[in-house]
């Protein structure tokens, strides 16, 4: 299964990015092989709707789990519909976030935990 982590740069040692829709990179980790694939987040510079665009990229990238810090209401609704589980992370690197998820020490988000981008 694939796990997606929002990141400030590429690779497993990249710092996690606290923003979901506007994180520069998404690192997809294959939990079978431990291999990581970093993809630039094309939504990062969107004028509006970065969250919904990024959420589609997570789903289309085949991830079933998303590790990110802040997720707004529209992106969360989309991720729920796409059956992507969202876990909340705070700081650290991509591999640290991934290890924490493997050890079952992350909290699963039941609701959006950030305000809509346009509402400020």
């Amino acid at each position, binding site marked *: 299964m694939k796990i997606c982590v929002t990141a400030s740069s590429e690779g497993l040692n990249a710092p996690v990015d606290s923003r979901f829709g506007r994180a520069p990179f998404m690192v997809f980790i294959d939990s079978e092989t431990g291999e990581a694939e970093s993809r630039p987040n094309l*939504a990062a510079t*969107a*004028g*509006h*709707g*970065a969250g*919904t*665009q990024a*959420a*589609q990229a997570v*789903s289309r990238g085949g991830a079933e789990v998303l590790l990110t810090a802040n997720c707004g209401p*529209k992106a969360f*609704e*989309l991720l729920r*519909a*796409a059956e992507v589980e969202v876990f909340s992370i705070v700081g650290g690197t991509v591999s640290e976030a991934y290890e924490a998820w493997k050890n079952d020490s992350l909290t699963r988000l039941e609701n959006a935990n950030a305000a*809509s981008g*346009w*509402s400020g």
Partner: protein
Amino acid sequence: MKIAVASGKGGTGKTIIATSLALVWENPTFLDCDVEGPNAHLLLHPTIEESRPVTVTVPRVNEIDCNLCGECADFCRSNALAVLPRKWMVFEQLCHSCGGCRLVCPTGAIYEENRRIGEVRFGRRDHIPFVQGELDEGEAHPIPIIEEVLRHSGDQGDVILDSPPGTSCSMIEVAEAADVVLLVTEPTPFGLHDLNLAVRALKEIRRPAAILVNRADWGADEVRDFARSEDIPILLEIPHILKVAEGYARSRPLVESAPEFRSAFALLKSQLRSLTRETAA
């Protein structure tokens, strides 16, 4: 002639100036275009006779015809559509109602519905027709409401437009509809900073501007220097007057709290008129 009363910074006194201008004007129409917080009615006390909803179109999908190809979502620049392996979703508040999704859908599965985003109210203060738009709470796109308000400018006569603050799309929409824009500012660092932004925006869209300095007795030298360097006339300076502030707190327009300013506003009116004539010539 259409006069927009705008400002960069909020709270400089746009509405108290716009309403006072309306009260010294002969036969104006007053449009409150500040649809995210219309408040001119608090000073003008119009009788509202009618209100009409403003709607925009949003896409819907006929699930039987939709093959979840995703072309609509790829096309949508507003990221208002999402197509998941088993689901089509629309985020209505992101939608700009362009209708493109319906056009690109290869199976004709998308149709449009109207969705309410606010309303426009019509009324009258004595001889002054009054129109006010208000965006519903939680809605993101004020422009369709402003467009609807502007449609009621009337065929003849002068129109006073109370503009939204700032220099974003809402203010540009109103300024572009005007023949001249009166920028109300105050002599504070924030006032001057945002006045500069507003002047830049108006130069970009080529609308003649004039400045009114409110609370000018706080020290307006920097505003005067700025106006000189930009070659924009300061048409009126109003000091901070306690009875005007007290009147405002009691919903009274400036020219009612301080009737001695009626002649200054009448002069302001003719200056605005000649400014549009100069620009036209």
